[in-house]
């Protein structure tokens, strides 16, 4: 079987790549997708630990993370649509004033 470290290293790499994407990209939607990537990396770590310890609690946590990510994506994308309509731009560097 595959040692658990391999999964953890992969999870760390994906999380790091998510942070890099979050720092370097300027489109709001791409930032959101970087957050989803980070959540996925964390899910991978959860399932890897759940399998190595033999308990199923990690998988239940993964289900909850997926549910919360779904709710957050729905509301977040709604806010993004409104912001983009008001500012007429999807560049996150233009959303820097509290007033239009």
């Amino acid at each position, binding site marked *: *079987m595959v*040692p658990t470290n391999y999964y953890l290293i992969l999870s760390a*790499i994906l999380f790091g790549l998510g942070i890099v994407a979050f720092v370097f990209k300027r489109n709001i939607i791409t930032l959101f*997708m970087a957050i989803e990537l980070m959540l996925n990396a964390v899910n991978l770590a959860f399932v890897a630990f759940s399998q190595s*310890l033999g308990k199923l609690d990690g998988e239940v946590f993964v*289900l909850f993370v997926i549910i919360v990510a*779904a709710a957050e994506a*729905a509301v977040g994308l709604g806010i993004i649509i409104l912001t983009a309509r008001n500012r007429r731009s999807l560049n996150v560097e233009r959303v820097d004033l509290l007033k239009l």
Partner: protein
Amino acid sequence: MTGPIFIFLVLAAVAIAGAVSLILYRHPIHSALSLIVVMIALAGLYLLMGAEFVAAVQLIVYGGAIMVLFIFVIMLLNAGEEERTNFSTLATYGGVPLAFAIAGLIAAALSRAGTEALPAAAQGGAVSSTRSLSMLLFSEFVYPFELTSFLILVAILGAIVLAQREN
């Protein structure tokens, strides 16, 4: 190289390639497709670990609903490509090598301490079956489960309120 490790390396390579192309592509829809590739690779990894229900839920909910929502928004807002700018010198020549160094340090620490700290992955299928997962979900975790249904209701109401036209 045994079978499972080979499959793991293939899926891990696909996942990392998807994550890197998320960063490198300039058009958000190509980034979204790369993220979908990452999610499918992760679903394959969950299957490799024996977590079949989680793999199916990941594909159905994450890959089939959340990412479709992202793609809808990108299409509706007609998001275009990002402009090219030069990143700051500090970020490219200082930050990226430092990030690689930190990642390498963590990976080395994990793999050195690995063999005695964590037991190797046990036999997957016997541990997680849908039946035992659902028993756990509805007995020990029933309170968070009901709370998440409430959370989804709040999210639906929020999305409807946000989507209303201003009268």
